[in-house]
């Protein structure tokens, strides 16, 4: 029995270290998790949404859950007083920045894993790697740091990055759950949910689940149409306005 557990732990460790990003590792994993819904649907009444993640661990351990949005280029602009008014002046472009980042832990993160692990797995917004876009490569380190800190601060204020880690709650010793809130300003795209099992200050197992944030129904149709057939969209916008104006004039005439 002891031997079996040891081999399975070893095996899962082996698999995890080999292919951390491979979903097939799930079957041999010591941690399994699922989302109550794989889609965050942005419809006309969308005002933010909660997603529940639940799962189980094999044996005791701590759990870290990271929700990471798709990466894109972000421009950070700094305002300066120019002729009396505050105007955007200097700018730095970062590339490969996740649009959304949230993290939940079952214990205090700093006590769970060493700094090297936090840095390697980018656990927490403050451990995200910053990459300068090609047009901003020539700036100094101090400036990069200043603008990167501003990006993190901005994202945290907008609710797109976690200000502090949320709670992973254990129900008993093996079952756990975590609630994530997606604010109304959330960008669309394919998000990834990373679930890590921590034992003895080391990440021993992991699982990745996709989460789709997408507009649905009328929202999606209008947005798609506006971007794909922008000229036709403009024409329709004008026709709607013309029709509304005509209807209004008919109403006015009767009065």
């Amino acid at each position, binding site marked *: 029995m002891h031997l079996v557990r040891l081999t399975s732990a070893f095996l899962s460790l082996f698999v995890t270290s080999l292919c951390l990003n491979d979903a097939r590792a799930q079957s041999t994993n010591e941690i399994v998790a699922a989302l109550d819904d794989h889609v965050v649907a942005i419809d006309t009444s*969308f*005002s933010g949404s909660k997603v529940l993640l639940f799962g189980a661990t094999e044996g005791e351990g701590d759990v870290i859950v990271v929700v990471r949005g798709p990466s894109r280029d972000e421009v950070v602009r700094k305002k*300066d007083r120019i002729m*009396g008014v505050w105007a955007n002046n200097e700018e730095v472009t970062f590339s490969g920045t996740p649009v959304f980042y949230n993290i939940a832990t079952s214990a205090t993160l700093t006590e769970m894993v060493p700094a090297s692990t936090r840095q390697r797995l980018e656990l927490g917004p403050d451990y995200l790697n910053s990459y300068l876009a090609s047009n901003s490569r020539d700036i100094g380190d101090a400036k990069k740091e200043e603008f990167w800190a501003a990006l993190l601060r*901005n994202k945290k204020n907008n609710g797109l990055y976690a200000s502090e880690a949320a709670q992973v709650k254990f129900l008993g010793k093996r079952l756990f759950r975590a609630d994530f809130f997606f604010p109304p300003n959330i960008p669309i795209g394919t998000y990834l949910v990373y679930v890590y099992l921590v034992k003895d200050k080391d990440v021993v197992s992991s699982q990745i689940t996709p989460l789709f944030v997408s507009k649905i129904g009328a929202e999606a149709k209008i947005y798609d149409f*506006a971007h794909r057939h*922008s000229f036709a969209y*403009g024409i329709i916008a004008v026709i709607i306005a013309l029709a509304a104006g*005509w209807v*209004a004039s008919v109403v006015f005439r009767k009065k």
Partner: protein
Amino acid sequence: MNIYLPIAEISVNMFLLLGMGGAVGFLSGMFGVGGGFMMTPLLIFIGVPPTVAVATGANQIVASSVSGVIAHTRRKNVDFKMGFMLLIGGVVGSTSGVWIFTALTALGQIDLVIKLAYVLFLSVIGSLMFIESARALWRKRCGYNLSGNAHKRKDHSGWQHKLPFKMRFRRSKLYISALLPLSVGFVVGILVAIMGVGGGFIIVPAMIYLLGMPTSVVIGTSLFQIIFVTANVTILQSTSNQTVDIVLTLLLLIGGVIGAQFGARAGMKLQGEQLRVLLAVMVLSVCLKLGFDLIVTPDDLFNVGLPGGH
């Protein structure tokens, strides 16, 4: 009840939007103004991105101008030839305006330029309106009769009359250079694109004082050209910036149509000068708020956006 706007990408209370449309519609019905210069700043205040506020504002003005033009055409108060000249200038101007808009968006300066343009124009218009209506109130109190202040006839020695390409405008009883309405239309067109206004507050004085048109045809003719210019801006903004939010337009329109009806009725019952003082005070306070936000040190000097400003 919150509604998620597909292009603005924010969640806003639906009744707030209907109410805002209604309030601005009420004012425009009462004072006979387009209301675009009130609507766009209000949208910015509630958190709609300025670029979306401007483009959607232009779309909404198409509707309010149509109902106005239909009423004025019935009374034969539209000089179509003059309107056509203004609109050629306007289409060229607004096309350049949208181009400037797109370029400023890429530079990350569009929000500032929109706000600066508003502060500039609202302060000038608000002050002029305030002075003019306060003076009228004062004179009325002193017993002067102001009912006969028709505009001055243009003398024919000004620089305007030395320009080439003279044209005859029968409806306006004018024989002036085509360059005048073309350039007036051009300047106003740029403003429509950048500020999301109809531009009535600029084009009406320009038509009266610069072109010397009779007051009776000025409103109808300006509305006629505003339709085409705002329609042009709507299509161009949709094509190059994807910033026209149809859902937002519709909500504002519904509120606006209802508000304008009540506003027109209320306007008939109340005294003109007092109303104009009130409007002037409102315009100036919107202007002050926008100006204050530009001058006061922001909480965070940094802001984050996408390359290209979307």
